[in-house]
């Protein structure tokens, strides 16, 4: 419209229309609407009245006090829409840079294009056209093998294009929110991450890059949750993603993390959803998946995408002994297709051997265990041989796990129990906010992987002892990873916390200790297919307390055990461990026991623990029966 009138009248006219829009926005109280709150990422202040935005980039706000003042931000946004800035590769008109705000305000206020000319926003339109969206899928990569701490997880969103199907989903785009840093020092990375020291940013990339990263490089199974969003909701999500492109948020690993902001994106898409209010303090990605799944009418379907290691393990289990015996030699360049052991096999078997050998070689390469100097040549030769065999191995696909991760027990746990220890009866209360213990119901969790945070046990003893903290463990991780002729992981454990320790005079102070160990584990009797696990660790413990002789004790010793599922609900673990405290407060301590769990239902379990302990030349028994609830 600019060329139709002289500059001064135009400005006056625009100012008049702006005043009118502001007036109507006040009448409608738009800045108090849920949609505006969501678009601006406003959240209630902790103590004082009012709100603040979680966005930390100055450029996200058009008003100087926009971070804390929804009304002035809304008015400044309306004013900015009158900008005549032309779009270039470097800059955008505010109507385009804040296209989700524009779209919503236009809907509420019905902008008159004669007074507020609409910008073409060519870059956004082309971007959207390339994405060609038809659906949104929430992506959840499960834990790494032998890495219980990665149960914590990660989530991303996938934009499914109109012209794709389940066979071509690799070509979709993924929206990822991540801490943007080149920090390679893990400790600095962890500390900064906990304190929000990194900018978190959204990015968009081909989904195949993420699939390769998770499935092939990190060997994590991936769950895909197809969401039921309308075209308008998908549009809002994309427009808002575009708005957030250049915006950073301070990234906090535990709460304002990848999963939290993806929930916020979904809330922008469908403002009626309330997904984030449960996660003010603590957003475990897998818990955020549960919240999404729980919403009525939001989940359309799920797809399971097994990792390379999962596929290899599955196919090794299907093989005949003759076929399996060839996999290691082929993957390590010690067999050829002219060997009699290979030429004697039917074509279907040959195809299977070559495929699994290639996948296993890929696994070895991704794990940094190259079996030969030029693995790429070996890999190429396996494929050329495979292409000559033709046909198909006709192996069934990896079965979808009957219980998804989000369908497993709740990650918080509280229990009550009673028992007898060294001649005294007691009542015990135990609670931990997260996450999974080896004795918890296993459905939906990675076998052998345990991660617990802030486990607290309090007991009230009879006989005048009274109440006391029995144990407080901020961090406990155990990874029992079975070995076989193809996978040779090291099992490991780490434990940090306070425990009761008996002294020579019979007192039992709460002693701080750190322990860790490495070990080996196998499934028996069949190392590939059995579920019963046996393990052996070598562990070391460091205890610190002023009541210990020399204020500390340093010990080392073995531990052995077996985990057996007696039925689908009943699990037992027998264990024995010994620690020789050789430095500081010297002593020989040992424990032997039997733990049992009976699953009553997904979120309820019974435990019966029996043990005999020995410290400072004294021995005693403990029996504890307890009931645990997961939520």
């Amino acid at each position, binding site marked *: 419209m600019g060329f139709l009138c002289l500059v001064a009248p135009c400005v006056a006219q625009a100012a008049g229309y702006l005043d009118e829009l502001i007036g109507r926005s006040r009448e409608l109280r738009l800045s108090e609407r849920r949609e505006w709150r969501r678009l601006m990422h406003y959240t209630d202040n902790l103590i004082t009245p009012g709100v603040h935005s979680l966005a930390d980039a100055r450029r996200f706000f058009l008003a100087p006090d926009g971070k804390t003042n929804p009304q002035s931000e809304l008015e400044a946004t309306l004013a900015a829409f009158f900008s005549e800035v032309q779009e270039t590769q470097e800059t955008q008109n505010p109507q385009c840079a804040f296209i989700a705000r524009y779209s919503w305000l236009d809907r509420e206020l019905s902008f008159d294009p004669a007074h507020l000319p609409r910008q073409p926003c060519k870059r956004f339109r082309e971007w959207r056209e390339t994405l060609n969206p038809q659906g949104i899928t929430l992506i959840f990569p499960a834990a790494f093998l032998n890495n219980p*701490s990665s149960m914590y997880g990660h989530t991303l969103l996938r934009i499914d294009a109109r012209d*794709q199907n389940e*066979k071509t989903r690799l070509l979709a785009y993924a929206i990822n929110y*991540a801490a943007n840093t080149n920090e390679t020092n893990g400790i600095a*990375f*962890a500390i900064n991450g906990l304190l929000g020291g990194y900018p978190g940013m959204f*990015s968009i990339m081909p989904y195949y890059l993420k699939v390769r990263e998770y499935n092939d490089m990190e*060997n994590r199974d991936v769950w895909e949750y197809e969401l039921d969003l309308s075209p308008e909701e998908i549009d809002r999500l994309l427009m808002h993603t575009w708005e957030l492109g250049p915006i950073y948020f301070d990234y906090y690993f535990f709460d304002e993390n990848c999963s939290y902001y993806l929930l916020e994106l979904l809330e922008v898409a469908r403002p009626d959803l309330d997904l984030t209010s449960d996660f003010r303090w603590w957003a475990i990605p897998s818990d955020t998946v549960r919240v999404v799944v729980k919403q009525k009418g939001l989940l359309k379907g799920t797809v399971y995408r097994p990792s390379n290691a999962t596929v290899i393990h599955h196919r090794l289990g299907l093989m005949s002994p003759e076929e399996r015996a060839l996999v290691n030699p082929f993957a390590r360049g010690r067999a050829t297709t002219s060997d009699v052991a290979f030429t004697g096999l039917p074509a279907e078997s040959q195809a299977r051997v070559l495929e699994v050998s290639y996948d296993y070689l*890929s696994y070895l390469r991704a794990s*940094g265990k190259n079996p030969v100097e030029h693995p790429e040549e070996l890999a190429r030769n396996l494929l050329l041989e495979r292409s000559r065999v033709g046909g198909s191995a006709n192996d069934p696909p990896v079965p979808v796990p009957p219980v998804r991760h989000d369908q497993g027990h709740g990650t918080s746990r509280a229990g009550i129990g009673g028992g007898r220890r060294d001649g005294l009866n007691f009542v015990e209360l135990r609670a931990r906010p997260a996450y999974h213990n080896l004795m918890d119901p296993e459905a939906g969790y990675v076998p052998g992987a345990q991660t617990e945070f802030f486990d607290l046990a309090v007991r009230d003893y009879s006989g005048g002892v009274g109440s006391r903290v029995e144990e407080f463990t901020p961090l406990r991780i155990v990874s029992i990873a079975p070995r076989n002729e193809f996978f040779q992981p090291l099992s490991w454990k780490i434990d940090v916390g306070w425990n009761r320790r008996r002294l020579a005079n019979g007192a039992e102070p709460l002693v701080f200790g750190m322990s860790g160990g490495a070990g080996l584990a196998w499934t028996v009797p069949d190392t590939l297919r059995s579920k019963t696990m046996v393990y052996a660790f070598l562990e070391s413990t460091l205890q610190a307390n002023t009541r210990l002789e020399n204020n500390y004790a340093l010990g080392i010793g073995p531990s052995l055990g077996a985990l057996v599922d007696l039925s689908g609900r009943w699990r037992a673990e027998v264990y024995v461990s010994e620690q020789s405290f050789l430095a500081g407060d010297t002593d020989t301590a040992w424990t032997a026991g039997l733990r049992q769990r009976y699953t009553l239902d997904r979120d309820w379990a019974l435990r019966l623990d029996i043990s005999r302990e020995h410290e400072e030349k004294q021995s005693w028994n403990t029996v504890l029966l307890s009931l645990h609830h997961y939520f």
Partner: protein
Amino acid sequence: MRKILIAVVLSAVPALAFAQQNNIGTCGWGAKLFDGQSGVVPQVLAVTTNGTSGNQTFGITTGTSGCTQDGVVRSSWKTAMFIDGNKDRLARDMSIGNGETLDSLAHLVGVREEDRAAFSRVMQQNVSLIFPSGSTTDDSVVALKQVLRSDRELAQYAASI
């Protein structure tokens, strides 16, 4: 809690011929990946790795960056970038004659349903040409184009690469 970041530079620098033919510049891009498999200690700290660093290439609204525009792959780069990002899987699926990466490639190249079987067969027969020893991505792209061109049924699709 050590976090190991491995810079995997997936170089997609095209052969001169390919670049000139398509009238485009170089498209170098990298991705930082976290390798959680190395040793015991790093795994403890992997609890914190729900963030990997991004870069300009996949930044939304960052304008043009080599092979991407505002984070999405330019159409002239789609096939090359797909092959580059899926080399090992694609070579595998070609040698077997089916699979997700092969389906996706067929879709990118625009192969119609009735030609899919022929496409799979020709890919299986020519996997050694498409992935020659020590090949780079641009070698593979050029070879793929030639393989399609020299097949009577599939020649029509050579132009879309």
